[in-house]
């Protein structure tokens, strides 16, 4: 139990990741998938930042006091990059959602799949022969 309390951040981060993961793979609504991706992504950031934390440390901005302990700046830098890249991919995702809605009139993936299947069947019927 004390182990779970000590590593609490890591355990809860995994719960958060799996909530986001579930939203991405199970929910058909594309906006919900994007929000699930955001939750997944932010919880990965949380994992990295938790790894960089040192007990009794302070933010890695030099104070001039030789006795200060600083938390690890490297995960912070990596995650800064990841946040910005994350918003770039989010923008592309939302643009795709807008286009899918224009082409299919829905943003539910099962409805889009049904329309694609119907098109496929119609194409096969047309190829089979104009006689019928």
């Amino acid at each position, binding site marked *: 139990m004390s182990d779970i309390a000590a590593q609490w951040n890591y355990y809860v981060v995994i719960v958060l990741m799996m909530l986001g993961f579930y939203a991405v793979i199970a929910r058909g609504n594309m*906006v919900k998938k994007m929000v699930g991706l955001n939750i997944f992504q932010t919880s990965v950031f949380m994992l990295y930042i938790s790894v960089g934390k040192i007990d009794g440390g302070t933010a890695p901005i030099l104070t001039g006091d030789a006795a200060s302990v600083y938390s*690890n700046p*490297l995960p*912070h830098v990596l995650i800064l990059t990841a946040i910005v890249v994350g918003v770039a991919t989010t923008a592309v995702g*939302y643009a795709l959602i807008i286009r899918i*809605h224009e082409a299919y009139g829905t943003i539910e993936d099962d409805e889009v799949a049904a329309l694609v299947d119907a098109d496929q069947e119609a194409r096969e019927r047309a190829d089979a022969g104009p006689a019928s």
Partner: protein
Amino acid sequence: MGMFAVNAFLIFLLVIIAVVALNVHRLFALVMLSGAFSLTAAAQFVVLDAVDVAFTEAAVGAGISTVLALATLSLVPREEKPHAIAPLPALIAVATGALLMVSIGDLPQFGAADAPVHIHVAPDYISGSEKLIGVPNVVTSVLASYRGYDTLGETVVIFTAAIAVLLILAGWTRAPHLRDGETENTHIAQNAQDREDGQKDAG
């Protein structure tokens, strides 16, 4: 100890927001919850000493992402079709989570100063920042100087994403004039049905 309590509380709040977000069907509420999630995460980053990450998350995660989502919502339906819990994805998520939790045992203690991540390059960055780069904020000196190529790569990714968004939304494949509620009639099945209806009308 106080810091630990704040930390534990904020991350628990994140779980509550995520669970509510998973169950809400109005997409506007969903997007607002997503913004709240990012903002709470930013508060947690401050507690974990990552101040630069915190303000980036607050500006970009809670700000720009929410604006992008709202812009999308102005063009697409705002209700989600209700879904029952999907058993197979739920099982996959639970199994993956269980495997990850087992592997936590191999991680160093949270907050331990002698964890491998803290004794490799980080001390050099901290000691060199003032002397070699002349910037007191270590995150800035690592971002812009020690690992400047990472940041160059990041700008390439953003540039590529901007081009992709422009091509998707303004490229030649897009039908120019769609009225409100109208969709591109690109579906073969639908067109065949329309033709049939037209023949019936003619005949």
